[in-house]
């Protein structure tokens, strides 16, 4: 089992999740996060006081899947979430050792 963590632009979520569902992924969790990267921030000025806002709104998608799906899922996300501009985000892959479905107590692959 692997965990895919993808950081994407907020307004790309709709398309990415649609593509993943079409592919057959039927479980994921998203979080509103803020990201800081190569993408420049912007300036906020409150009554003449300037503040650089470096952390921009992003969405983190987390999907736990079996190993064989990893490459395909990465590909789908990468394609649908890309606009070609700096700030499109990143995908990370982490190892997962076990999964449990709370409703039933099932463990391992069956829990996904």
């Amino acid at each position, binding site marked *: 089992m692997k965990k895919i963590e993808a950081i994407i632009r907020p*307004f790309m979520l709709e398309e990415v999740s649609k593509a993943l569902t079409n592919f057959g992924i039927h479980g994921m969790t998203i979080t509103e996060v803020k990201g800081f990267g190569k993408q420049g921030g912007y300036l*906020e000025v409150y009554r003449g006081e300037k503040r650089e806002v470096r952390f921009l709104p992003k969405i983190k998608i987390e999907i736990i899947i079996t190993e064989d799906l990893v490459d395909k899922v990465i590909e789908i996300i990468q394609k649908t979430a890309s606009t070609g501009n700096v700030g499109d985000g990143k995908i990370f892959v982490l190892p997962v050792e076990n999964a449990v479905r709370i409703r039933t107590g099932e463990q391992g692959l069956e829990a996904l």
Partner: protein
Amino acid sequence: MSRRFLSLAIGIWFFGLPRTSFASEGLNQGDIAWLLTSSAFVMIMTLPGLALFYGGLSKRKDVLNTMGMSLIAYALASILWVIYGYGMAFGEDIYGVIGNPGKFILSKLPKDLPATSASSITENLFIVFQLTFAAITVALISGAYIERMKFSAWFVFSILWFTFVYAPVAHWVWGGGFLAKLSALDFAGGTVVHINAGIAALVGVLVMGKRRMPFLMPHNLTMVILGTGLLWFGWFGFNAGSALSASGLAAQAFLNTNTAAALGAVSWLLFEWLVQGKPTLLGFASGAVAGLVAITPAAGFVNTIGAIVIGVLSGIIPYLAVTYLKPQFGYDDSLDVFGIHGVAGILGCLLTGIFADPSINNAAGLLYGNPSQLWVQLLSVVVVGAYCAIVSLIILLIIKSTLGLRVRPEDELVGLDESLHGEKGYNLHI
């Protein structure tokens, strides 16, 4: 010269009867008190009422820009009205088409001068009251344009539209222009305010094209409810203040306003419940606003039964316009300014021609034996609609080919608050 008094003069000429039982012999502090209050009430409709109503309906990333469009419209209209707007609308009539803008407010105006010789309120008070109507009309349009328009373009549009559409139309209907002479009925602004704004809205979205994210995603419905409450509250000044006196007529307009708003809200909610299975709060709010719009031209002409019928219909017809007409034609009227203000405005204008009860205000509609009134009403819809459409189009095309109307696509995605204003609506993390 002033709006109600003018129609009074016409009323007398038409029916040979005095219009209200309060003869105004000199200024009256009670009437002045009510008009001062009403002016503040109408002001609160725009700032913050409409700003909140529209702001809550916008996406989170566009909330400040959306609110800002209403705010700047209010401020610009406030300024221009005292400089030349009032003169253009209510100055000495020139061929029924426009007022003489020579009557600058900047020139000396004695503070205790009655608005007209027959008037119980002062002219500076009448200026203030009318100012708030001009301001909200411009602001109303913005709801259709949000989430895509340049702030600079809106700034310029507000000035031009105020000057070349609002001021003339107000003159025609209220300032002694040709529609007033035809005795078109518009108690508090169905034609001048709502149809006018609705048509400009429609033309604008056709010129600008669809947003990148052309769907309604209200980021804060509690703000929408707050805005609805302030609109409803302020509308009492709008409609009952338009009696220009603290009188039984004002009270009747107040009661009619509340009745139509309540029925608009309940009938929209019930209709939606029936059709879609769930009653929504946005439906309640939308119906309330539609009811308020529809009763606006009628408030001081119809009796309670008229108000009830107008209220019920205004919860259904605009609903159908928003839900079926818009997707059918595919125009992207962000917050349904045409669907609600335009459609309910036309509805109310026509129904006034049907339900006007002479015992209320010496004007009779179809049901009271005066079928010609309905034709006059229809005429005023067509004339105002056509004029507004053409001039709005010209203004928009001029701005499009100079400043440009729309922001860059990436700014639209990121949100206009950040890209145009460098601000965020909410900073909730610290």
